[in-house]
């Protein structure tokens, strides 16, 4: 008898909970974002939640993995990719809202080494030294794609050349499917060096890894596009999130993590705070 009543109470509670959930504003916005955005977007997501009361559910992974998931039916409201190639995969599948895809930030690949730098690496020229253990990205993950572009530049340069590239690839011990795995393997000291982004040496990571910049003439610029998906149930809230990322506030967070601003003025303030000001 007691159990029956208890069961009934639970059913009623569940029905109430779901029905109130349906009546209210969305409680969750689903954002698929490149693994390199983990720190910065985590913080921006918190800002968004503070302003709107809507929780942001993030899925951080290699952009190519996220694109594969969305093409195969995963639900997302917003996609932020670490290169245009992967957002185009989703676009080609007809899933992106093409009216509003924009580059919101930039980044640069960088050489990372464990903080005690056991192999004594000082720059690119050390990377073909035999016996090193280097970790890079797969061909599909954006960081791996950028790494390949850098290696092609080095191959065509007289100071480095073809054999440098061969030596480099001989030292590669693992190819990771997202940049965070590269960073963690270097931070653990299991690899002597890795090619990740300059934004990966976050304040929290600075005690475990050190960054060595790649000279301008050999490096490439990573451009991060972002857009909403056609399937989004909350287009206004998705737009609000993207505006927050592009606002001064959002840019400040991205720059704190080592991202570079895009040219052009930032959006003065978010739609959410506009709405608040109007109210």
């Amino acid at each position, binding site marked *: 008898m007691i159990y029956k009543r208890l069961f009934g109470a639970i059913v009623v509670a569940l029905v109430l909970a779901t029905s109130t959930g349906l009546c209210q504003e969305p409680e969750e916005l689903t954002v698929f974002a490149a693994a390199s955005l983990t720190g910065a977007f985590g913080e921006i997501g918190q800002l968004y939640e503070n302003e709107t009361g809507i929780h942001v559910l993030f899925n951080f992974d290699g952009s190519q993995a996220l694109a*594969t998931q969305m093409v195969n039916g995963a639900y997302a409201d917003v996609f932020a990719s670490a290169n245009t190639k992967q957002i185009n995969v989703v676009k080609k599948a007809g899933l992106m809202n093409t009216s509003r895809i924009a580059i919101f930030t930039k980044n640069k690949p960088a050489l990372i080494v464990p903080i005690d730098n056991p192999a004594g690496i000082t720059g690119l020229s050390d990377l073909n030294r035999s016996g090193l*253990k280097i970790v890079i990205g797969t061909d*599909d993950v954006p960081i791996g794609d950028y790494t390949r572009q850098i290696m092609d530049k080095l191959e065509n340069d007289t100071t480095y050349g073809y054999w440098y590239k061969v030596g480099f690839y001989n030292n*590669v011990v693992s190819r*990771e*499917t997202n940049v965070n795995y590269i960073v963690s393997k270097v931070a653990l000291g*299991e690899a002597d060096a890795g090619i990740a982004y300059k934004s990966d040496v976050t304040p929290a990571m600075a005690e475990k890894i050190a960054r060595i910049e790649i000279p301008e003439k050999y490096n490439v610029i990573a451009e991060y596009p972002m857009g909403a998906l056609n399937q989004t149930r909350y287009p206004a809230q998705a737009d609000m999130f993207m505006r927050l990322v592009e606002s001064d506030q959002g840019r400040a967070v991205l720059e704190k993590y080592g991202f570079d601003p895009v040219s052009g003025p930032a959006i003065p303030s978010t739609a959410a705070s506009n709405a608040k000001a109007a109210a």
Partner: protein
Amino acid sequence: MNSKQVIMASDQAKAGYIKGLSVHTDESVLISSRVKEISLKAGLGLILFLAGAFIALPVASLFIKSPLDVTLRSLHDPVVIDALRLSLTTSALTAVTVVIMGTPVAYVNARFHYPGKEVLDSLIDLPVIMPPAVAGIALLMAFGRMGILGHHLNALGITIAFTTVAVVIAQVFVSSPLYIRQARTSFEGVAPEYENAARTLGASRVYTFSHVILPMASNGLISGAIMAFARSLGEFGATIMFAGNFQGRTQTMPLAIYTAMQGDLDVSLCISIILVAISFVVIAMVKILTRRVHKNAGS
């Protein structure tokens, strides 16, 4: 057949009992019991069908989504060739290692009691229950370059993480319990009388083990080794964490499926189909071998 007869018999008994009570309801009861029986059978049939379809549909989808010519073309892809070669060699090496190391352990645990046996038994079974990701990070903490044992090895110039050796270590770690368990059961199935008879006839311990016990337990041992081989072929989590992901060196078939799925789906499907085919062969072999064991036990 048997259960059907039982059901029918019980139905008849019921019908007979009710017949004695009332003549009027006789026919209607018979009909209702038949309806019950038919609907029960139909219901069970549907469940069996759904269970079969639930497994068959995804497997069939692999073949439907990957036409034969695409699969054959992908077979020439270096990613596929390297992964196949690496997976087969490491899994074979693992099976051999597990048999060599595991057979004595299984025999001792089947025949003798010693202090700490329970503890060792539980430890041996632990990797089966342990999530592969835990196994991966545990192996890295032990054998990685900065690991408990690994940094001593590193000082001697031996590195394990991110090498093919790491792939084999991860596979041995996760698949050895399958073999040891099966081997132990097989040894327990050999009656001690045979062993005693051989010993009283003057055979040495070693001779008895290799000429009496091993042949009698061999089917079980082989099927255990095949299971360990199959588990190694499928190993993913511990490998990607401990051995990394490098084509030709540490990128086994499951890792290649995972990596290729994010770029070239055809390659991914091709490797999957090969693994499905191997799985079928493994199941068939284990079934045949265990059937023989039962026959031997029966005769």
